[in-house]
């Protein structure tokens, strides 16, 4: 129970931090920001590694493997796509 309370505490505080993190974002950055946060929820990869790596039986090993592939695509694809989008904004207009 104590563990549970700790986890819930962490969750609730993280939710509040998440609410505060997005302030006046220019529309230009809406898509990159969506894509960037999209990559972050690929953190589930950590969970998938634990499932696949510690599996006791074939079923959970296979499910863990699928979860790993999915999550790794989410992480790697998400970060690279976001970086490609943001790269476009790096070029400064000449004479400005």
């Amino acid at each position: 129970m104590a563990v549970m309370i700790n986890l819930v505490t962490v969750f609730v505080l993280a939710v509040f931090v998440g609410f505060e993190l997005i302030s006046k974002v220019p529309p230009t950055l809406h898509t990159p920001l969506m894509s960037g946060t999209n990559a972050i929820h690929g953190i589930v990869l950590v969970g998938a590694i634990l499932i696949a790596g510690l599996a006791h039986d074939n079923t959970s090993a296979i499910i863990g493997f699928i979860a790993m592939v999915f999550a790794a695509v989410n992480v790697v694809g998400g970060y690279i796509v976001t970086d490609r989008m943001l790269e476009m904004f790096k070029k400064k207009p000449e004479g400005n």
Partner: protein
Amino acid sequence: MLIVLALSYLAASICFIVGIKWMNHPATARTGNRLSALGMTLAVVITMLNLAVAQQDLVKDASVLWSPQTRWALVLGGLVLGTVIGGVMAKTVKMTDMPQAVAIFNGLGGGAAAAVSVAGKVAPTPGAHGEEMLWSIVLGTIIGSITFAGSLIAFGKLQGLISGKPVTFPGMRLFNNLLILVTLGLGVWVMVLGHDPIGDKVFILTLVLANLFGIMLVLPIGGADMPVVISLLNSFTGTAAAITGFVLQNNVLIIAGALVGASGFILTMLMCKAMNRNLWNVMFVDFGGGGGSAGTIEGSQQETSAEDVAVMLAYASRVIIVPGYGLAVAQAQHAVQEMAVLLEKRGVSVKYAIHPVAGRMPGHMNVLLAEANVPYSLLYDMEDINSEFEQADVALVIGANDVTNPAARTDTSSPIYGMPILDVDKAKNIVVVKRGKGTGYAGIENLLYYNPKCKMLFADAKAAVSSLIAEVQHV
């Protein structure tokens, strides 16, 4: 090891928080994304190291079937396979197809969250905590499945595999509401039954229904609202990832997932505001565009030629270009910029009017034009440029449709009613470059095309702009 693990997860969480914060501002956005990627790398590497330690104990357990070598092959194989697939997809996807890419990545993240939850139910692994965490297993499975199936449908719609128009049937709203209630009800039943054979069967049914609900949730939503849907599903996936953190009692999963869940929700609200849409209406009430109000349109569309348009542009003093998705699909960004430079040399003032949702996502058009080296200073947001249309001699609409439709201001029965639009109809002359007479993404007729001031140039955006360039050079 446990202390190193906990501190590394804390460091990774800080990277995510600061990274998202930096992504709020154009100047720091790229560094922010890279910082967040660094945090992710740290979390994954430390998890692998921890796995190496944890496996030492597992070897002593006789009930374990798989050898450590097989396990590592499994883990490394999955990691390499996913990295290669994700890397190749992300490197090769065209900028115009960015929304689909985000949709599919999001769906896979949701699928992974669902799979991790299901694994916790199938055979509680040493990391997973069966009985007491059953609620999180059920919830993670339901939310993960909804975003998985929903995102795949969104992907299909954006990719054109499924009709972008709303797919509905009579009573669908009631059906969907019942479906989610039944799914949640079954989920509660699973929690009550605990780990027993009947509970397992009910769990599988819950999994199937949650996927079905994901499909049914996104099918009736029209293409124009797709960015909002993807953003909302992104927030859901974050929540699902956080819930897997309860299944595995893992802080970094909870923190990162909750951050995305919350910030993604705020971002969704911001997008809705930019489009003047109400989230509840988008998801549950409007059900996308209907047939529109075909009967109320009077007059006809007037066709024109590239020659006439070129003369009009060359002798104008103020031109506003309204780029839309059609321009992006035709890859006409570079040609448009070439034409703009040509016009500016003749002393014409050229500005770009960017609707917040021009393209397929908020900010999508800015990305595409930046790719074509259009100077930032020429791009104007809707609020900044709308007052200037009255003074504009020519408003040149290239491949944009719904965001210029005056029906959004006047026709209360229109599915896009209330959406802020570019005041193109106030310009002295309007030229619309369009591939054919078809309707826009919302699936409705554009009243602008029947405006007496409006001339239609039916052609592929790139071909049209190329011929405009040639004609302007001759004027």
